[in-house]
Structure formats: structure tokens, C-alpha cells
């Protein structure tokens, strides 16, 4: 009899679909929170959009390779994706470690990384239908958005959003796993928030930074893959080949952070002390 490995077994896909459906429904129960979040994202969309248009205007209509409508789209798609990749505020796993509830997760016949990932994809699906759609519709009504010229962009963008969600999940999961060692992860969360705001391309397009920083950020950290990548794919910054290379980087990071999550999970379980008896 071998040791259990996290690889999916037959029937896992159906189980994953059920868990993703549950993730979707769990978030669908909090409608007021969803409306409040969409409203806030939209208001900040107007602020950021004004700043970006001022930047583009000052730079003669093109800033770091983005034209005006591309920058507008960058802002509104970014505002919508914020909730889809759940850039901020996921502490469910660390809370469960702190309270000891994590032991129930370990007693399921599925690897915890797979369980949490599928539930997170369901949550992201709900966010796509609501938190992503709302600011985008408002942005489209108030500004001229960039419409992709290549048909292939649409499936590539969807795939890129999916990969971005997985990368974001992996990083958030790793941040939460530190609770096995630290119990209180507020310090780690602050570091993650700083990276999530600046290095993912939320505050400004990463192309605004010097050229020499670009490979370090894209290949050396997972952060651009979380937000900048899907936006760049959607606004067709660069050629179709460039879109594919962005997607390849994202898939590489998705695999890396998931593998790291599985490894760290294994280490964490070895030092598990379930709190409170």
C-alpha cells in the first residue's frame, strides 16, 4: 500500500465540479456584500480611470505602449478582476488553523489543496458573473473601452483569467499556510497586500516601470501573472505570440505555486498541533 498522493483519482472531476458549485453558491448567499463590493470597485474605477487618462494625455496619447482606450480598459477590467482573483482578504484557511477546524479539512478523502482550489474556482465563477461584470458595464457606458480586434483574444483572455485565479489562489494558500507556524498571520498578510497592490499591476501598469525590472517581476515573481497578465492579454498589448508567451508564464507560475502549496501543506501537517484539544 503506497502513500496517498494529491493526484486526482477517477471521479475527481465530478467531485471537483460539485465543490466548485458549492463555492459558487456559498458566495451567492451574501448578495448585499456583493453589491457593496461592486459599488466600491466601480467608484474607484472612476478615480483610477481619470488618473490614467491624465497620464496618457500628458504622454501624448500613448503611455508605455497603451493607447487611451487600452488604458481605460486596463482600469475597468482590473477593477472587475480584483474580486475574481480575490486579491485581498482571504483568511479562511488561517482562521481554521487557528481555531483547529482545519482537522475537518484533513479528514476528507480529497487533498486539501484540491478541495480549496475547486471551491475557490466556484467563488471566482460567481465573482465573474457579478463583481467583474458590474464595473465593466459601468465603464463601458461612461468611457470608450478597447474592443479586442483578434477573435482568439477572447478564449485566451478567459484562459488567462482562469490561470490568474489559480496563481492567486496558490499564493493566498501559501500565505494562509504560514498560520501552521505563526498562528497569527497578520504580518505576512501585510507583506502580501503590499505585493498584491504594487507588483500585480493594480496601482499602475507594470510597463510603467523600467525595462530591466520587467523580467525580474514576470519570471521571478508570480505577481504580474495575477492581474497584469489577463489585462494585457485582453487589451492586446503586443502580438498574438506575446499573448501566448504571457499565458505560458502564467501556467508556469500556476504549476509552481500549486506544487509549492502541496509541499508546504505536507510540512505543515507534520507540525500540526490542533488547537484546543
Amino acid at each position, binding site marked *: 500500500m503506497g502513500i496517498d498522493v494529491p493526484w486526482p483519482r477517477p471521479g475527481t472531476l465530478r467531485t471537483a465540479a460539485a465543490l466548485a458549485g*458549492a463555492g459558487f453558491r456559498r458566495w451567492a448567499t451574501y448578495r448585499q456584500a456583493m453589491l457593496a463590493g461592486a459599488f466600491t470597485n466601480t467608484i474607484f474605477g472612476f478615480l483610477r480611470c481619470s488618473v490614467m487618462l491624465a497620464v496618457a494625455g500628458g504622454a501624448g496619447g500613448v503611455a508605455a505602449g497603451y493607447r487611451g482606450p487600452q488604458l481605460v480598459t486596463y482600469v475597468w477590467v482590473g477593477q472587475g478582476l480584483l474580486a475574481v482573483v480575490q486579491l485581498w482578504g482571504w483568511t479562511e484557511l488561517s482562521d481554521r488553523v487557528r481555531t483547529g477546524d482545519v482537522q*475537518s479539512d484533513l479528514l476528507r*478523502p480529497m487533498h486539501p489543496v484540491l478541495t480549496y482550489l475547486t471551491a475557490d474556482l466556484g467563488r471566482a465563477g460567481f465573482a465573474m458573473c457579478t463583481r467583474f461584470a458590474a464595473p465593466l458595464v459601468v465603464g463601458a457606458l461612461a468611457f470608450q473601452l478597447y474592443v479586442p480586434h483578434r477573435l482568439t483574444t477572447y478564449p485566451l483572455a478567459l484562459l488567462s483569467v482562469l490561470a490568474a485565479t489559480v496563481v492567486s489562489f496558490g499564493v493566498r494558500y501559501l500565505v494562509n499556510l504560514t498560520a501552521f507556524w505563526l498562528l497569527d498571520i497578520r504580518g505576512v498578510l501585510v507583506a502580501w497586500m503590499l505585493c498584491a497592490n504594487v507588483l500585480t499591476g493594480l496601482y499602475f501598469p507594470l510597463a510603467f516601470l523600467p525595462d530591466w525590472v520587467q523580467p525580474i517581476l514576470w519570471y521571478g515573481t508570480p505577481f504580474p501573472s495575477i492581474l497584469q497578465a489577463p489585462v494585457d492579454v485582453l487589451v492586446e498589448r503586443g502580438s498574438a505570440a506575446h499573448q501566448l508567451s504571457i499565458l505560458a508564464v502564467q501556467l508556469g507560475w500556476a504549476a509552481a505555486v500549486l506544487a509549492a502549496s502541496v509541499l508546504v501543506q505536507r510540512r505543515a501537517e507534520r507540525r500540526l498541533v490542533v488547537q484546543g*484539544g
Partner: protein
Amino acid sequence: MALIETHGLRKDFVVRRKVGRLRRQRHVTAAVHDVDLAIEAGEMVGYIGPNGAGKSTTLKMLTGVLSPSAGEVRVCGLRPVAQRTRLALRIGVVFGQRSQLWWDLPLAESFRLLRHVYRVPAADHAARLRRCRRLLELDEFLDTPVRQLSLGQRMRGEITAALLHAPRILFLDEPTIGLDVVSKQSVRAFLAELGEAGDTTLMLTTHDLADIERLCRRLVVIDHGRVVHDGTLGELHARYSSRRRVVAELDVPWNGAAAPSGTSIEAVEADAHRVTFALHSATAGELIASLAASGALRDVSVLEPDIEDVVARLYAAPEPSRG
């Protein structure tokens, strides 16, 4: 091979204590110490001990949540930690103070989800759920989100959730903690029926000894991480000299005579009209016959030994006298 088997099972926790301003001293505490257990299929085992005795730690090692520091464990023929996800299909676990249900979703939805997680055929799942709905009276709150359930309702939901995949072993950690009298009775009656059916092996930890009396034929007592008793409740009473008692109400005051042979007098009360005898070698019938022969017996009652008393004596005894 037993369904649950441990040899020399041990769990050490490292505690760092501050000594001086910067220095910390490392202490190793054995939460579970050389526990040997063999539990056969169909048994109902009560695993009891005072707070911090190592009950929950043992259960966590048996379910694969905690890695043992030493010793061997096999549950359903599997190594719990290394083969945890495979073992999860064969066991059900209820932790009285934790929840395995989805907090935001209605109870029925949690059950539906568990069918997919455990890959239970739809017909089997429906039949088991029907039975639990009937016996545990789940219908009135089946569509309520778990976060809105009362503790008693949630616990009935937890037990159902742990049984829908027909586990071979059901581990229960304090299943009646915090429940009201009616909920406790409902949970106990359900577990008793489950145990009597014989398909599911039950192992439960509890502080409520009424759970043990009602449910468990075998009792394992653990203290300071060591097993101090493994046997029936009757054997525990015999070992700690728990006696049945006979309380006799007399028409005339007790004359101070010696107790009939095979008994001893424990108390003389109510102006010597009420005498409590402890039975040693004599039976209750012999004592009552002897009292009736004196002609002064008005009423009599027989008291069974109190499990709370014997366990309290067991917990309070100094370590060397146990075991």
C-alpha cells in the same frame, strides 16, 4: 487483524518555556504514552479520561490528523497519516467542538456535497439519509443554513454527515458536549441503535459518563497519556471495589448489631430507621431475606454502583496505584 490496532503509540509535544530574558528551555511532554489497543469490528468502545489525558490526541492519531512520535498504528489495515485520504473513505469522524459541514450552505446541500466528496451511489446515499432523517428528526431544519442551526441540530447534522458514506468505524469526540437533555437522549438512542446493528464500530470519547453507561460495552480509561483500564464497566467496578448498596427502611431503630455476613454498614440515618448496607460477598436477596426475617423491614431499595464515583476515584488516585 483488529480493525483498530496500536502498539506502543506515543505522541510527544515540544513546549518551549521562557527562562531568563532571552533563553528558552525545551521540554518534551508525552501526551500519549505507549498505548496498546486492539478494537475488533462491531465493538462500541468508550475512551475516557480527565481533561488533558490524551484522548483527543489518540483519536487524531487514529484518524491520520496527527503523526505519532513513535509506535505503530493500523486502522482498517491502513497507516492513518500516510494513507489518510484513503482511510477517510472508511471512517466517519464527529468532533463535538468542530464542524465538518459547510457553514454558509443549507444542511441538505452539505449532505448532497458529501455524496460527491465520498462518491456514494445516489440510491445508497438517499436510503442512508432517509434513515437518519427519520431517527434524528432532521426534516424541520434540513433547508436551514448550518450557521443558523442550534447546537443540538448541528450535532445531529454532523452525525448524519459522518455516516452517509457508511464508514466501518465512527469516531466521536465528545458528541454530546453542550447538548440539552432531549438532544443528548436523541443522539444516544441513535448511536445505541447504530451500535446494536453491528455494522459500524464505535469509538467515543466523552466526559458524560451516562454516554458510556448507555452505549459502551468496553471502557478504556486513559490518564497522563497511559491506559489505566481496559475492560468492561463491571470489571472497573470490581477493580475499584464499587459495591451495590441496599438501603433498608426499618419499623424499629437499628439495634447496632453487626451487619449480616458478606455485607457492611455504610450509614445509619433517620434516627436509626434507615440503614445503608454495602454488598461484598452476599447477594441483595440474601441480605433482604435476613432483614425480613427480623420482622422490622418496612421498605428496601437496591442502588447500583455509581460510575461517576468510581471514575472520580480512578482519576484522583496517585499514578502508581493505577494500571
